[in-house]
């Protein structure tokens, strides 16, 4: 959108925006230099550089175990949530049955409901089902949280795809599954990758539900971080934060760039 006001007249607005964007970015990225500090205190800028906090992280069982639990859970959630979420999105997009709207709303609801409510509900169900502090329990719980993201992403993907291509494949003798896997899926693969990535990150970053349903040897990284932060602000957490930042932001950024390039070509 262009307009009749010159950029010079708008300078104050640009400066204001730049400051607000700095407010958003700087505190997000400040954990990176902090994690390489040589000091015990959390002085900034750091008086010197070292890898001691990373060493701390990799040498302590508490952190390493939790990181492995988180990665395992995130991979599991990615697979389960992407599968059931994509199946649901496909069924609701293609099917013409009654209750479609209700089912969609139900599946999207975990996104709107406060995490604390999901957490105490899960805590209760898991307490009676013996699923507390288990990896399987964590994966299912995170799948609940991730389903809306997969559903919304895949529904958008299916909407931008011409379903009659699948009909053509089926009329030429492919069964529904073959038609879906060989014709539809390759064309919505971008949505599928986004959905899987979202499911992974949603699980990896999830705190509230994890605090309630994980514990002991299967505590997630976020739970251990939360508990540690309640007591003190150990600089090891800066190293953990940097690792989390890299895991959660690099893949989506690469994907975004790939998408932009694809759109331009």
């Amino acid at each position, binding site marked *: 959108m*262009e*307009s*009749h006001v010159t950029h010079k007249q*708008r300078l104050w*607005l640009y400066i*204001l*925006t730049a400051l*607000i964007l700095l407010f*958003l*970015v700087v*505190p*997000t990225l*400040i*954990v990176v230099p*902090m994690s390489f500090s040589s000091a015990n*205190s959390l002085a*900034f800028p750091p008086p010197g550089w070292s890898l001691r906090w990373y060493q701390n992280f990799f040498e302590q069982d508490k952190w390493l175990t939790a990181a492995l639990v988180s990665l395992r859970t995130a991979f599991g959630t990615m697979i389960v949530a992407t599968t*059931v*979420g994509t*199946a*649901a999105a*496909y*069924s609701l997009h*293609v*099917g*013409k*049955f009654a209750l479609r709207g209700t*089912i969609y709303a*139900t*599946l999207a*609801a975990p996104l*709107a*409901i*406060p*995490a*604390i*409510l999901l957490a*105490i*509900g899960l805590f*209760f*169900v898991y307490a009676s089902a013996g699923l507390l502090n288990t990896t399987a329990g964590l994966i*299912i*719980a995170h799948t*609940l949280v991730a*389903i809306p993201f997969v*559903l919304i992403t895949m529904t958008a993907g299916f909407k931008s795809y011409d379903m009659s291509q699948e009909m053509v494949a089926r009329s030429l003798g492919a069964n529904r599954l073959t038609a879906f896997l060989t014709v539809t899926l390759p064309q919505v693969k971008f949505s599928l990758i986004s959905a899987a990535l979202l499911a992974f990150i949603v699980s990896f*970053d999830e*705190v509230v539900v994890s605090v309630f349903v994980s514990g002991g040897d299967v505590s997630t990284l*976020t739970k251990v971080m*939360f508990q540690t*932060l309640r007591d003190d*602000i150990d600089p090891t*957490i*800066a190293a953990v934060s940097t690792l*989390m930042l890299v895991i*959660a*932001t690099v893949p989506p*950024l690469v994907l*975004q760039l790939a998408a*932009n390039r694809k759109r331009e070509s």
Partner: protein
Amino acid sequence: MSLLQTAASDYRQPAATVAALRENAQALDRDRQRENGQLLRLSLPALAIVVILMVAPIGWLFSLSFVGADGGFSFENYTRIVTDGAYVSIFATTFQVAAVVTVLCLLLGYPVAYVLTILPDRFAQALMLAVLVPFWTSLLVRTYAWLVLLQRRGVVNDTLSMLGLIERPLPLVHNMAGVTIGMVHIMLPFLIMPLYASMKAIDGNLMRAAANLGSSPVHAFFRVFLPLSLPGLIAGAVMVFVMCLGFYITPALLGGGKVQMIAQRIEQSVSLFPTWGPAAALAVVLLVLTGGFLLLSWLIVRRFSRGE
């Protein structure tokens, strides 16, 4: 016999083919129903997870909220929320934090979304990264960063005293200020993104038309652009407000126990009381508030878009 052949033979044998056509239609109907049934089954795994782990427990919380300490039916869990001063102040704090955070997000988010709209796409996309990176970053990581930045001898206090603006370090964390700053930082992208999307959809020619008709830029902004951006603004603001109502992690860490919001109280009630009744009642109230505000924003936005 195919449908086409049936139709072609229609001229010669009317009675027989009507029956055949009907049979055909019924067969197609059955086919469609079978296919829909098969399709429906595909959404059942996801539905089972959501129903068993979310819908059922919420229903169960709802029924528990009416169970008193003695195990019988009672409204005591709800009356406690209204009469007990501790609960009343928790609700007051929650609404206060949510309202302040929403207003600050509006004030900070609107100019950003506006600038992103008027800049060329290439710049806007690059700047959008500044909104997306925090959005993709764990809320725990960002809360930790604020804990460090805002502490007594943290960067913010050091900078302010170096500039000679303050003599003693300001108490910026483990209090309301810390919670507010941390939450604004987390919620801002949630406001900017929908607002940017709705501003992008406004026809730029309208502003040029206003200028053409003699309107000053400021006047045109307030009379043309602002009203057109209101639906996105309201939708974003309500979303921010509602999400704030259920916040747990950030107030727990940056509030230092001094800022009590509903979610923390629910967590405490679970461990504090031998029965689940008090926590369940709070959960129901939080759910009703969340649902109510979302419904309200939906109605407002619908009315706006219909008014056009």
